């Protein structure tokens, strides 16, 4: 009975093919040796054992070199068998064992014999196996055979030779380049389509770095009329890629014509590929897009679901860049919304949301809700994104849309979907004042019944920030206080912080807030109690500056850097006070990540945020000689100091610290016949070099960094711009590019790089002030400087704004970096922190009159900084 049951169980496991399950490596290899060494070999048994070996190999079992070699030689004995199945399995085994066995070269002659033999079934697999076992030195001996095979009249053989050459080209491009004549011949053969396809693939692989050759390839093969669909698709891709990389090429028109011509091809595959490529080319304007869109429109009504899906996907992508061009398909897309395939329907929907006019929005949105229930979360997120972008496009519809979003928020859904929705709602309330109230109340409703702690804390933070600015802030307090009664500790803590925000911004509510906070101070959770107690104490002190810096103000310090600074501080004797000014400032981007939690909404959230932030490590910590200059106040982006594709490429990153600039030069040596030693960069100019860290040895193709540290004068003597002339200094040792052998002698050499400028922007870190005007008032007029400039070179306000913005390197606040169309005057509000921790605010009023006139007001905590900035602009 027992045995019977076990049998039954095995059957259920689906182990019909017992022999291939649970294979033991060593017993299989043993069996292989025994079977293959017999005389004569039994074909049926051999193919079974070969299958087992393949199985073991594909299970990823590690086979030792010696074992593998022994098995490999046993397998080679099977070349005596003329059995079709055995031979083909032998080829596959040879390929799989090529990299783990020694002396695989032994089968070269046997394979070349099969490859040129009479049996067509053996020829193609023999070529593939041969290319796999042949190393760089042996390649020459099979060259002639490969060339012959490429132009063989059997398509399988030619294809095998061509595809194998693509693999060979990866490791030995220069050898394969000698085979291209034959490949070209194969490409223009009129026979089998697959051969053409593979031949073009090979030609492209071999020449893809040569733009001119690629262009020739396309134009040459574009002219051949009787071309296979596959080859045609490949040509389209090549052409599109070439255009994408460099659309300034002289005969890009020809390539474009080719792609457009393919829209009239008889094969659907080619037509689709051409249309897709046209959409993918970012430079296209609506006129160029029109033919592509019209063929896709035809596909929309195709009976084949794959074509419909392809078409609607591409249209959706096109709609993201050129909604106007796609709007012609709106009717077809609406039909597709009732498509049986949900993916097609959803894509049609989200495309329509992108292309639709303002009038159709409401109708569409109504339809969304009808099928939201049927689709998966990923597609739902897609729809939410589409709705969100719609809100940005039609601000007037924002309240309708946010109602829809709120409706969706009530439905079931995973955390991703919900957070996409919350994101969308938060974006709405940022963008639009009218919608703010509605959106906020939707969010309030959401947190009433929200099971995701992270989302609840996030919403509470937003409520705390935005709620006080509304007309009736008191309305929100009930929602927030409900959280304190009902939720988990993390949410309660966030709610306490949100309450404190209301207290700080709305003086009339302060007494009631204090009552609520006192109740929170009796909470059972430490964090909640601590926060409540802290806020009560601050409010009771009635010190405005204390309130503004601890409650209503935002923290600009990067959390990771603060943590590190504090740790370092604890290592010292702690006799001096901790100086907050030494803590680096977080860039607004980084704050964006942490903003949900920055003022400490919940104890669990910052953990996540920190994990993200630590990715951005202090670059100076890694170099022991430079650790003393850390922390970095601001790092610039990499700046290329050489042209691309020169002998040595060098790029520079400026790390500004408290009193120094650490210049990090990332060098790469592109010369295969040189080994560089003692590489460093000499800088000459207004600043003194204090330290140099050089690269001991720089091999070809390796990127390494050397550092030069210069000292900055103090603020009094700081001029707005320093120019540093750079020279790369090194010792050259010649080496043999193939063997890597290095000559003994070396000689000094240098290489002139482009100059580096250290500008005002390098000293200023961006800071986002939520309430710029309040910050402006807070700094007070005592350090204000004002000046007026005429920017004659500028023609538009937007251009001027962009220029000032990038020149000063400060954060634009209250979205003032976007100039509304058709205005003749604009005010740009900038905020930043100067090196050393001095807050700087800049107001620049621009007016358009024969160029741009600018009135610049600077306020700062340090008069010298104000002065420096005004000077630098002038």
């Amino acid at each position, binding site marked *: 009975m027992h045995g019977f049951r076990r049998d039954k169980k095995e059957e259920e496991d689906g182990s019909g093919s017992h022999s291939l399950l649970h294979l033991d490596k060593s017993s299989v290899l043993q069996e292989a040796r025994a079977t293959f*060494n*017999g*005389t*004569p070999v039994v074909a049926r048994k051999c193919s079974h054992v070969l299958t087992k070996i393949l199985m073991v190999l594909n299970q990823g079992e590690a086979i030792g070199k010696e074992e593998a070699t022994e098995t490999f*030689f046993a397998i*080679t*004995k099977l*070349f*005596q068998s*003329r059995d079709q199945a055995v031979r083909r399995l032998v080829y596959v085994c040879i390929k799989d064992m090529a990299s783990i066995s020694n*002396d695989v*070269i*032994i*089968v*070269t*002659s*046997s394979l*070349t*014999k099969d490859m040129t033999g009479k049996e067509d079934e053996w020829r193609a697999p023999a070529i593939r196996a041969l290319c796999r076992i042949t190393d760089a030195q*042996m390649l020459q*001996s099979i060259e002639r055979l490969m060339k012959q095979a490429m132009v063989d009249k059997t398509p399988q053989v030619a294809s095998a030779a061509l595809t194998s050459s693509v693999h060979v080209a990866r490791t030995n491009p220069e050898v394969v380049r000698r085979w291209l004549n034959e490949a070209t011949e194969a490409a223009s053969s009129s026979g089998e389509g697959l051969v053409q396809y593979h031949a073009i693939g090979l030609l492209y692989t071999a020449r893809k770095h040569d733009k001119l050759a690629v262009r020739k390839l396309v134009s040459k093969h574009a002219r051949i009329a009787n071309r296979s669909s596959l080859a045609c698709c490949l040509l389209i891709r090549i052409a599109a890629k070439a255009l994408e990389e460099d659309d300034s090429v002289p005969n890009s028109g020809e390539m474009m014509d080719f792609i457009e011509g393919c829209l009239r091809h008889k094969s659907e595959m080619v037509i689709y590929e051409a249309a897709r490529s046209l959409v993918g080319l970012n430079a296209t304007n609506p006129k160029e897009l029109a033919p592509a869109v019209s063929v896709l429109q035809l596909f929309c009504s195709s009976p084949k679901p794959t074509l419909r899906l392809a078409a609607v996907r591409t249209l959706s992508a096109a709609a993201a860049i050129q909604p106007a061009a796609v709007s012609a398909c709106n009717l077809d897309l609406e039909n597709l919304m009732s498509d049986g395939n949900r993916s097609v329907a959803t894509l049609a929907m989200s495309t329509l949301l992108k292309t639709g006019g303002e009038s159709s929005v409401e109708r569409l949105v109504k339809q969304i809700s009808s099928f939201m229930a049927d689709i998966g979360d990923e597609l739902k997120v897609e729809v939410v994104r589409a709705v969100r972008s719609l809100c940005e496009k039609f601000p007037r519809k924002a309240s309708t849309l946010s109602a829809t979003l709120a409706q969706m928020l009530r439905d079931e859904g995973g955390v991703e979907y919900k957070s996409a929705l919350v994101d969308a709602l938060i974006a709405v309330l940022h963008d639009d004042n009218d919608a703010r109230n509605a959106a906020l109340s939707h969010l309030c409703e959401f947190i009433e019944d929200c099971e995701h702690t992270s989302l609840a804390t996030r919403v509470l933070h937003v409520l705390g920030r935005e709620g006080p600015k509304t007309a009736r802030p008191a309305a929100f307090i009930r929602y927030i206080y409900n959280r304190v009664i009902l939720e988990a500790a993390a949410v309660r803590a966030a709610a306490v912080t949100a309450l404190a925000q209301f207290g700080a911004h709305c003086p009339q509510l302060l007494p009631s807030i204090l009552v609520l906070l006192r109740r929170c101070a009796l909470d059972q959770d430490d964090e909640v109690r601590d926060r409540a107690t802290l806020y009560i104490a601050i409010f009771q002190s009635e010190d405005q500056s204390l309130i503004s810096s601890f409650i209503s103000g935002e923290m600009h310090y990067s959390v990771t850097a603060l943590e590190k600074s504090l740790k370092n501080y604890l290592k010292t004797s702690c006799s001096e006070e901790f100086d907050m000014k030494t803590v680096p400032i977080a860039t607004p981007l980084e704050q964006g990540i942490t903003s949900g939690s920055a003022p400490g909404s919940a104890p669990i959230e910052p953990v996540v945020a920190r994990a993200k932030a630590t990715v951005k490590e202090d670059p100076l910590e890694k170099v022991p000689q430079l650790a003393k200059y850390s922390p970095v106040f601001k790092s610039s982006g990499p700046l290329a100091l050489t042209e691309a594709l020169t002998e040595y490429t060098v790029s520079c990153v400026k790390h500004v610290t408290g009193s120094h600039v650490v210049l990090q030069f990332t060098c790469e040596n592109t010369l295969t016949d040189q080994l560089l030693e003692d590489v460093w960069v000499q800088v000459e100019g207004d600043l003194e070099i204090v330290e140099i860290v050089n690269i001991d040895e720089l091999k070809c193709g390796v990127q390494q960094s050397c550092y030069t540290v210069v000292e900055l004068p103090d603020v009094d003597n700081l001029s707005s711009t320093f120019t540093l002339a750079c020279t790369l200094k090194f010792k050259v040792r010649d080496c043999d590019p193939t063997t890597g052998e290095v000559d003994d002698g070396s000689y000094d050499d240098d290489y002139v790089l482009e100059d580096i400028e250290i500008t005002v922007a390098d000293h200023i870190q961006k800071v986002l002030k939520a309430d710029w005007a309040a910050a402006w008032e807070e700094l007070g007029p005592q350090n204000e400087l004002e000046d007026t400039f005429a920017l004659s070179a500028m023609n538009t306000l937007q251009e001027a704004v962009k220029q000032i913005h990038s020149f000063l390197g400060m954060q634009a606040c209250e979205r003032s970096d976007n100039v509304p169309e058709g205005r003749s005057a604009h005010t740009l509000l900038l905020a930043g922190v100067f090196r050393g921790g001095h807050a700087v605010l800049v107001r620049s009023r621009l007016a358009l009159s024969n160029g741009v006139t600018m009135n610049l007001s600077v306020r700062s905590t340090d008069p010298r900084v104000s002065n420096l900035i005004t000077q630098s602009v002038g």
Partner: protein
Amino acid sequence: MGIFSKLAEWLGVKRKECNIVVVGLDNSGKTTILNKLKPDDSQTSDIVPTIGFNVENFSSKSLQFNAFDMSGQGRYRNLWEHYYKDCQGVIFVIDSADKLRMPVAKDELDQLIQHPDLVSKRVPVLFFANKMDHRDALSSVKCSTLLKLDEISNKPWHICASNAITGEGLDEGVNWLSDQIKSYLRDLERRRR
């Protein structure tokens, strides 16, 4: 082996199969000899240096041979031994015109005779003193003295002069080999019983 193939063999319809290895220094004519031994319709005209090995099939009047034609180039000679284990016969080809490298051939031969996989077996070894038509060719007797073939005691051996291009001397050698292999196989069978 199935009962039908046994029957077929007994009736003489199907020849018994055996494996042999063909070794010798490079450019001694191994591939050419095997090419000549194959039926006329499957012979090729261009012979290139073998890389690794090739398998050729040919038959004598009573046996079907699977010949492993090994490459004679220096870097592949140490791979010969992989094929010694299951062979029933060895053909050693000597370039009789290459007097200079006779010691090298002698060296390789010694290694073959002493090899653990062959040393205890009475595997027949056939020597072809190839290129007999060549002007400087040594006679087969001279070759056997230079290679000290007399010292081989535990294996039957035979040397015959050959010309692989015309096929002269090949049949004689192959006939000797097939007789020897047959008796060797009979021996094995008897011992197994």
